[in-house]
């Protein structure tokens, strides 16, 4: 069965650079979520989209923005990167909101 696809899987950036993470949800899933997991921590919700509209927002820094496109894929844009942004970034999708969320393999971002 098709799963959530994330790219790139690994990303290394310098401080103050920008990064774009991409997420391709499971086919027919119209809800996408982004989570950030720091080393040794539990995943923290960043933002979600339903039918291309932002549906919920968590502790997402103003330096980050995200959107969902017409084909339902989503991108997380991160600017002015800081050392503390180093983390695993997960995208998840669900068939409908408030349903099982299926997670992608994550993008490991390292900021040097």
């Amino acid at each position, binding site marked *: 069965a098709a799963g959530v696809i994330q790219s790139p899987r690994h990303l290394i950036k310098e401080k103050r650079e920008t990064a774009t993470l991409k997420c391709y949800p499971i086919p027919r899933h119209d809800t996408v979520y982004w989570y950030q997991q720091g080393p040794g921590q539990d995943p923290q919700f960043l933002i*979600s989209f339903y039918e291309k509209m932002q549906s919920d927002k968590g502790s997402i820094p103003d330096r980050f923005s995200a959107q969902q496109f017409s084909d339902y894929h989503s991108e997380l844009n991160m600017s002015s990167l800081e050392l503390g942004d180093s983390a695993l970034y997960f995208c*998840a999708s669900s068939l409908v909101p408030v349903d099982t969320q299926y997670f992608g393999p994550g993008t*490991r971002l390292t900021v040097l």
Partner: protein
Amino acid sequence: SQQGEEDPQALSIQEGENATMNCSYKTSINNLQWYRQNSGRGLVHLILIRSNEREKHSGRLRVTLDTSKKSSSLLITASRAADTASYFCATALVNTDKLIFGTGTRLQVFP
């Protein structure tokens, strides 16, 4: 403060034994989901239990939910070395679709 807290934080058992992990949460939920994560890898969905359900089974997994006590438990029976991972509970709160994760239980199963 953390919506979901799990205990124990770490659990070590022998193959064949059962493992029980507990999750407590603070506010009303739509559902509660359990995930497994191997070190630094992705989150694998195990089971979802809705707020009007009390128990669900999936293979060697049994999940219970007690909304009056705001708690859930995950039981893995006849554990295997391949079950070694971190296990997280995640709650979907009422009027929101985001998941709030618990602190996780690190399970080590020795062959």
